[in-house]
Structure formats: structure tokens, C-alpha cells
């Protein structure tokens, strides 16, 4: 068949479908919903994975995060006024770095809560006392000034790096670099401001919105190792050496092995489980698994819908073949070959399913938009999903149109001509 013949068959097919608008539309519905849910499924999946990936990127996929956690039994056994001692130790940090292979470096951090004040403005900051390496592992854009440097630690310089959000709350800006901010009762020189990237996700990031970064040694000297928390009139004292240790592993393939080695080491050295290990990579894997489950559910809905749609098309095409038996007889008598009859009906079923596919694409683009609007779940409609699902809809037309078309072609011309 020539391409011109193809176009004419196409025109005839479209015309015939337009003669039965309602019937054609109803037949299309199965494919519409099928294609719609394929696109929606891929959009939700893609959205979830791009979000997860973005979060993992914030954490760093080569990193392992250790946090100190107040052990559960401590709360009940000890009276609130007593000093609680728990958490990660400086020696954990050193041992980790020295004994576990594939660990490139570690970044210890103490976390304190102190009020920060600049002029009239006052805001509670999360003070992160750490080493300059922090900024290599938790990469954030520098808006103004610089991050902590090794010489700040060596000189025990009272300097701090603010976050964008913290700076805004203090009415500080790029111009504030070099000004002094009062943190607790001490004065710190602002040396830089960083872009915020924390928050918003399901995964905990190492940084928070209102962070202020200071050299670890300075914090030890100025604020000591004991933190006092006032709650409901009573004082709660805690002694925690390190609140966080970020471990950087040399290669992504070693991350899980190193994580289990750390787990083994810490469980040997700590009497209680007063730490938590979180592996962004494992979280990523988990997110992938969740996504896969979700996709399987949506995929089977789409599959069933497409199957039903296909059967609907087959049904209507069989009806159409019966209805047009005489026409088929006429065409055969005139000299149409079997394959030309097949082409005619196949094209018609493909037009039907393809049109369903196009409407389905519209639906599939709309549904994720609604999902994002009402649930806040991020969705991305990738181009390949549109092409894939349109391809599927066309394939449905071929697969389910083949049998009716074959039936039409195999009709005996004489019997077909006599058909009323």
C-alpha cells in the first residue's frame, strides 16, 4: 500500500468513526483511562524520585550521618534534675577515622541552642560547632563572605557563619559580614552567609534553617560540654560530647559496608544505644522501593484499564465488521486484496485507540497537576512517558484490531455481498 493509500484509509477510518461519535467515544474511554494512569503513574514516580534524589544530594550520597540520641530508658530511670550523659564521643570520632577502612574523613559537630542578637533583633539559633570540613561535606552556596577555615580553628577565633534565613531574621545581609553578633553572652564576628537548602523533605538534613556555624574549639572553650535545658520550671542538664558525626566514605560502593562497620564498632563501645546511624544511600534505596511498590499498583490499574480498553476496541471493531460485511464484499469484488481490507480495519482501530491515547495524555498531564495542587506531592511529567504511553495506545489498536481485521479479510466475498 502506498503512503497515499495510507492517508486515504486514514481519512476513511476517521470519517467512519465520526459517524458513530458516541460509540467511538465510549469505546475510547478504556484507553483514555489506561493511558491517563500510565502517564500519571510515571509522573508521580518521577516526581518522588527526583525529590528523593534532591534530598539525598543535600545529604550527600557518600556520607553517613551519626547522631546522638537520648536513650529511651534514661528518661524513666533518672530524675529530671540529674545530669544525663550520653551520645557520641570525641574518641568515637577518632577511632572511626583511624580504624575503619574507606573512611576518608569525619566531621564532628556539637549542637547548642543559644540566642543570637544583632542590634535590636534577637533570634534563637542552632549553634553548630564543627570543623571547617563540614562545608566540604554539606555543600551549600556561599552568598557572602566565606566559610570557616582551618586558621579560624587554630586561632580559636570567635567567628561565625550564618544561614540566609538566620541572617534575614537578624536583619543582616551581605553588608553584615564583619559585624559582630552576640551569641549567648559572647560576641562573634560574622564571616559569611550560606544559602539554605534544608527542610521541606521527608529526610532529615544535617543543616537547619537557623544555623550558626562556629569553630568546635571555640564552642568548647566558651560554652563547655554541659548544656542546660529549662523545661517546666525544672532544669535538665545534659552532657553530650558530640551531637553529630558526618562520615565521608571514599566511594559510593563502600557506603553500606562502612555503615555496618560503624554500627558494629559503636555497639561494642556504647553500653546503650545512644546514637543513630542514618545512611542517605539506604534511604534512597528505600525511597526507590516505595516508588516501585507505588508504580506496581498504578501499573496494574493501568494495565487492567488498557486491557479492558483493548477488549472494548476489539468488541466494537467486530461489530463494525459485521455491520459492514456488505461493504467488505463490495470492496473485495472490486479487487481489494485481503491485506488492504486488513489495513483498512486495522487503521480504524488504531485511530480509535490513538485518539483515546491523545485524550489520555491530556488526562495524564492533568492528574499529576491536581495531585500536586491538592497533596503537595511533587510530580514531573517526563517526555518519554508521553511517547511511551502514546505508543502503548497505538499498539493496543494494532493488537486488538488485528483479529477483527483478519475476520473482515477472510470473509467470503460472495457471502459478504449477499449479506443484508
Amino acid at each position, binding site marked *: 500500500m502506498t503512503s497515499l*493509500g495510507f492517508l*486515504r484509509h486514514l481519512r*476513511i477510518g476517521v470519517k467512519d468513526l465520526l459517524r458513530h461519535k458516541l460509540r467511538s467515544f465510549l469505546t475510547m474511554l478504556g484507553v483514555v483511562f489506561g493511558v491517563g494512569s500510565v502517564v500519571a503513574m510515571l509522573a508521580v514516580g518521577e516526581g518522588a524520585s527526583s525529590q528523593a534524589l534532591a534530598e539525598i544530594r543535600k545529604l550527600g550520597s557518600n556520607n553517613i550521618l551519626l547522631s546522638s540520641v537520648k536513650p529511651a530508658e534514661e528518661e524513666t530511670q533518672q530524675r529530671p534534675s540529674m545530669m544525663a550523659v550520653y551520645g557520641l564521643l570525641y574518641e568515637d570520632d577518632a577511632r572511626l577515622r583511624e580504624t575503619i577502612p574507606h573512611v576518608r574523613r569525619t566531621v564532628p559537630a556539637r549542637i547548642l541552642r543559644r540566642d543570637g542578637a544583632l542590634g535590636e533583633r534577637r533570634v534563637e539559633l542552632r549553634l553548630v560547632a564543627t570543623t571547617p570540613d563540614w562545608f566540604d561535606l554539606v555543600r551549600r552556596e556561599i552568598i557572602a563572605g566565606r566559610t570557616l577555615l582551618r586558621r579560624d580553628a587554630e586561632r580559636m577565633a570567635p567567628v561565625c557563619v550564618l544561614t540566609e534565613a538566620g541572617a534575614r531574621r537578624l536583619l543582616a545581609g551581605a553588608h553584615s559580614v564583619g559585624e559582630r553578633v552576640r551569641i549567648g553572652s559572647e560576641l562573634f564576628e560574622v564571616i559569611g552567609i550560606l544559602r539554605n537548602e534544608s527542610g521541606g523533605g521527608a529526610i532529615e538534613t544535617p543543616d537547619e534553617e537557623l544555623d550558626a556555624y562556629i569553630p568546635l574549639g571555640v564552642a568548647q572553650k566558651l560554652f563547655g560540654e554541659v548544656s542546660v535545658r529549662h523545661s517546666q520550671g525544672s532544669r535538665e542538664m545534659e552532657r553530650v560530647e558530640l551531637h553529630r558525626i558526618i562520615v565521608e566514605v571514599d566511594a559510593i560502593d563502600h557506603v553500606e559496608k562502612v555503615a555496618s562497620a560503624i554500627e558494629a564498632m559503636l555497639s561494642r563501645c556504647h553500653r546503650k544505644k545512644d546514637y543513630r546511624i542514618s545512611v542517605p544511600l539506604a534511604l534512597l534505596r528505600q525511597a526507590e522501593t516505595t516508588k516501585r511498590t507505588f508504580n506496581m499498583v498504578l501499573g496494574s490499574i493501568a494495565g487492567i484499564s488498557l486491557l479492558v480498553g483493548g477488549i472494548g476496541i476489539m468488541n466494537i471493531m467486530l461489530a463494525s465488521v459485521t455491520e459492514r460485511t456488505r461493504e467488505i464484499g463490495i470492496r473485495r469484488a472490486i*479487487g481489494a486484496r485481503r491485506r488492504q481490507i486488513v489495513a483498512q480495519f486495522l487503521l480504524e482501530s488504531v485511530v480509535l485507540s490513538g485518539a483515546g491515547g491523545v485524550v489520555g495524555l491530556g488526562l495524564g498531564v492533568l492528574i499529576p497537576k491536581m495531585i500536586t495542587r491538592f497533596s503537595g506531592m511533587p510530580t514531573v511529567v517526563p517526555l518519554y512517558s508521553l511517547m511511551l504511553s502514546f505508543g502503548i495506545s497505538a499498539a493496543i489498536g494494532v493488537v486488538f484490531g488485528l483479529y477483527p481485521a483478519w475476520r473482515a479479510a477472510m470473509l467470503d466475498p*460472495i457471502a459478504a*455481498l449477499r449479506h443484508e
Partner: protein
Amino acid sequence: MNPSISVVHSNTDAPVEVIRLQGVSKVYRMESVEVRALTHITWSVRQGDFWAIMGASGSGKSTLLNLVGLLDRPSEGSYTLNGMNVADLDDDAMSQQRLLRLGFIFQSFNLIPQLSVQENIELPLFYRGWEAATCARRACELAEKVGLADRLRHRPAELSGGQCQRVAIARALANEPAVLLADEPTGNLDSRTGTQIMDLLVEMNQEGRTIIMVTHESDIAAYASCRLHLRDGRIERLEQGHP
């Protein structure tokens, strides 16, 4: 268009044999009962002949026309069309022969209702793979020939019976076939329109086209130059006209 078809009148010295049936029988098997529709038909049609196949209903007229029209195959005997043994043709080749060498005209016109007059006439050209513009030009010519040039955009439902049959004739002529096969072409028409259609067929015959027409009316058969009388599937009588 097929320029190789020469115009040969029935009274030319050496007429070409277009169709030859040799001992052709057709047996249908209906639920283990054998029905003999045709028995030992030996018949030849020369180029330019105008045959009427006559007989009572059930005498095998339509079966014979279907065999000659390559819509069916003989159970026994051989059928030669333009020197080709039909037994050697597969389904595609039979379709191709129907398309290029034969033109059908039916009692009930058999136009495709959803297509316009022009599209109906173009159908054989379309299956031949002609370009749309060439098809349209040819369809106009043919419509003009049968006197329907102003009806090209109409649907068959908007035409009278006589007009429908003219469209059918135009469609049958589209690929310049050697043989026109007409199955009771006037059966659904009043006598006046019937006469007009017959005049048109005679005109086609005078242009050199071979016509085989099935009819049970003797006044219609009188237009033909030769007559084949069938009774119970056998040839009862052959009348070869000598104009």
C-alpha cells in the same frame, strides 16, 4: 488506464477468446449434503461479445457469474481468463485480476453508502494505488461518460436507482476492464430507466468491451448478441447472434 486493450468488434475476423470454461462444475457442500450448482459447463467468450446468461432462479446463473468473476473457484474443470489458468492464481492474484480485468455491476448497485459518488468511482483506482489527483480526474471523466458529472459530491442515498446504477457502471469501468459482469442490472429499476441502462451497456459493448449479463427477462436479454440458457446447472441452449 490500460491502453493495451484494443477495440475489437464481434464481427472481426479473428476474435480473441477472453474466457474459456472447460467442463466446469461447481459443487457446494451444505451440512454433508452435496448440492451441484453447475455441471460440465463448457463455454467460451470472445472479446467484444455481449452475452446474456438466462435461466430460472436456481438454475446456476449467479454461480456461473461468480465463477467467471473470480469470486469463486470451480470444483472441477478448468477456467482460462485471458490465457491464464485460474487454478494457478492465489487469492491476491485473483483480486488483482478482478481489479484490472473485470468490472462488476450488481442488481442492488452495491455502492458504499458512506462514500460520495466520486469516492465510489475512485475505489478501483484507489486499490490500484493511483494518486488522489489522478483518481479525481479519471472519476470526473467517467461520471461525465455516464451523465452524472454534476453529482460527484452526492451520496448514493441522494440519487435515484438509475443514477446509482450509472455510478456503479462508472466504477466498473474505472480500470478499463476487458470484461463487464452484470448481475440483473435492471432488476431494481423501472422499465424506462432499465432501457437507459441497457442502452449504456450496449454503448460500452460497441466500444469493444466484452459484457456478460445475468438476467431472467427475455426483453432485457434481447439486447445481447449471444444467449446462454441454463437449466439445473447445465447448459440447455447456446444462441450465438450473428449481427
